[in-house]
């Protein structure tokens, strides 16, 4: 019995000690918890690492997907969230009701969705128009040597082969951008399928993740699919030029993506919730999207609020310069300025 008591005492001492040391640690440094989108994970972890080295502020970011990020922000289990799709008015009012504060959308970088295909006889440089692309994904154009594809690809050897459509099987921000685009350019798509992170695909095979889609396309002659720009560049997949709103065929490049965002500056709402697909301007690549940080306007922990505010300001100033090396398109200056106006709203008092 005596030894038992002794053990208990030691255990209590250990617990107390740990608690105390945790307390002092928490005083020394701020730790920010975030969760959400997988797409910007690479640049975010670079930023978090650099900023940690600079200021000692710690980040814990879980790339669980945009949907998960939105759920966590709604439940209040994280300090900030991240999403490739902006929240609806209803989602925002739900959070306001539950958490008692508004949520700000701060864009950080941009991505583009490229149409990748596997046609050895064509090689790179296939051209596609919005209506042809939509009809391929609707299952209306079934063969590669269809007259409508031939017409826009004069001089290319299109095989008499069935088209295999490949899409994402998992819910994804990339799918959201892609279906958003198809809905804007095709009435039939909008009516039949619509926009979402997961949709009821009319035809095709589903691959899990960007690598799943890329793997299917790479391995199957005659396949066509959509992947993130960064993924296509890194894996040297062949991808198509798309006809944009101005009627020009544009290759997906970082410049063409930034041009798409710049084209939207005039119409950008002040809360920065905007989709930049099918942008005007002759240099714009039409299937592009922003990714946002979701930040509570009024955080309970003011030290955390200040740390997050400083971090986001740093990311928008210095962080953007790392974007292209990591295959993201940086935000145009005009949008950075608009982001800072939003950041200023974060309350630290």
């Amino acid at each position: 019995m005596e030894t038992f008591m002794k053990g208990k005492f030691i255990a209590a001492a250990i617990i107390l000690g740990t608690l105390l040391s945790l307390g002092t640690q928490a005083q020394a440094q701020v730790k920010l918890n975030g969760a959400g989108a997988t797409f910007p994970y690479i640049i975010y972890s670079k930023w978090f690492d650099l900023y940690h080295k600079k200021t000692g502020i710690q980040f814990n970011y879980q790339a669980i997907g945009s949907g998960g990020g939105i759920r966590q922000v709604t439940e209040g289990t994280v300090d900030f969230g991240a999403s490739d799709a902006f929240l609806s008015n209803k989602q925002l009012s739900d959070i306001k009701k539950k958490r008692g504060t508004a949520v700000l959308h701060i864009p950080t970088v941009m991505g583009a969705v490229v149409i990748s295909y596997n046609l050895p006889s064509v090689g790179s440089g296939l051209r596609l128009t919005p209506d042809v692309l939509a009809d391929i994904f609707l299952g209306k154009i079934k063969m590669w040597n269809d007259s409508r594809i031939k017409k826009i690809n004069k001089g290319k050897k299109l095989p008499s082969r069935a088209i295999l459509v490949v899409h994402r099987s998992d819910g994804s921000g990339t799918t959201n951008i892609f279906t958003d685009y198809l809905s804007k350019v095709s009435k039939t798509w909008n009516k039949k399928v619509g926009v979402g992170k997961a949709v009821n695909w009319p035809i095709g095979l589903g691959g899990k993740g960007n690598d799943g889609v890329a793997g299917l396309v790479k391995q199957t002659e005659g396949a066509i699919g959509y992947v993130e720009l960064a993924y296509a560049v890194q894996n040297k997949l062949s991808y198509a030029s798309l006809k944009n709103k101005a009627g020009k065929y544009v290759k997906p490049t970082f410049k063409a993506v930034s041009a798409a965002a710049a084209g939207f500056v005039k119409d950008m709402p002040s809360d920065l919730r905007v989709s930049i697909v099918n942008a005007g301007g002759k240099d714009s690549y039409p299937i592009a999207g922003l990714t946002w940080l979701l930040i509570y306007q009024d955080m309970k922990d003011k030290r955390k609020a200040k740390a997050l505010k400083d971090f986001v300001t740093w990311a928008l100033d210095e962080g953007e310069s790392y974007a292209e090396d990591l295959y993201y398109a940086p935000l145009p200056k005009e949008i950075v300025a608009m982001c800072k106006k939003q950041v200023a709203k974060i309350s630290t008092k």
Partner: protein
Amino acid sequence: MNNKTDERAGQQDGSPAARSFSFRGLIRTNPGDFIFENVTRFFAFLVLALVFLMVYEMTVQSLPAIKEFGFGFITSSDWDPVNNLFGALPFIYGTLFSSLGALLLAVPLSVGVAIFLSELAPGWLEQPLSMLVELLAAIPSIVYGLFGIFVMIPWLQSDIQPFLMEEFGWMPLFEGAPYGFGMMAAILILTIMILPIITSISRDVMRSIPNSQREAALALGATRWESIRIVLTGSKSGILSAALLGLGRAVGETMAVTMVIGNSADISVSLLNPAHTMASVLANEFAEATSKLYVSSLIEIALLLFVMTLILNAIARAIVWRMTKRYSTAVA
């Protein structure tokens, strides 16, 4: 059998209470026994409580979907997250089709391997071979998925499926295009994955048949095959439970199947077409599901998967009981 022990115990006791004999009466107890008994009881009930907690949580969370779609959830094949329409039929179908298909291939194969290991293989071969079979069970499912994508599917695409389409294309089972990805790939991967569990349990069951039975059969002039048949009859129920354990694994398998099945919520008889399973739709869509009804529908699928496994297990138990009963009366 029981009567005999009864009598012997009674004689040793010499008491009139011998008729109401129970093992408990024989056991000497001390406080340690009391503690031990209750600790183990606690663990046993913990498992029960966990199962109930899971069912409760899943039921509560899937209530919105149950209210919205009712029984139609099981019979509808719409899966349209954009319009908040959900039906689980394609996933239930895909799960049953792929698991039963895998079982159909794996059982004869496993039993064959088990017979070889327990009855025919020489000692120096049996040990390493058994180890290799059990090693198959230790390979993570994602590795099977990668094997499927990079080795099996190109092979199916270029050799197997074109051949099957040419020779058997008139059968609805082999209609379609040779994508490689699809039901056939899923069934083959699952077959490899459930092979080790069925094999090793069947082998153990066969080994537990006493050697005297084999010797008796041989002494009466049976051939080797006939003696193996006697062993097989004796281990029937064991092999069946092994198969059902394998089925359980096939039903719940997620990653490997997701990577090769093509993930398309269609219902088709063809082995060449893409399909979807309950486990893979959960793996695919849960992380990005935002609307309440969407999440709730996914959880209802989880609940259905749980119930399905429960039903399969119950049927399995019932069959095993019936078989053991018939077999033991036959022996008596």
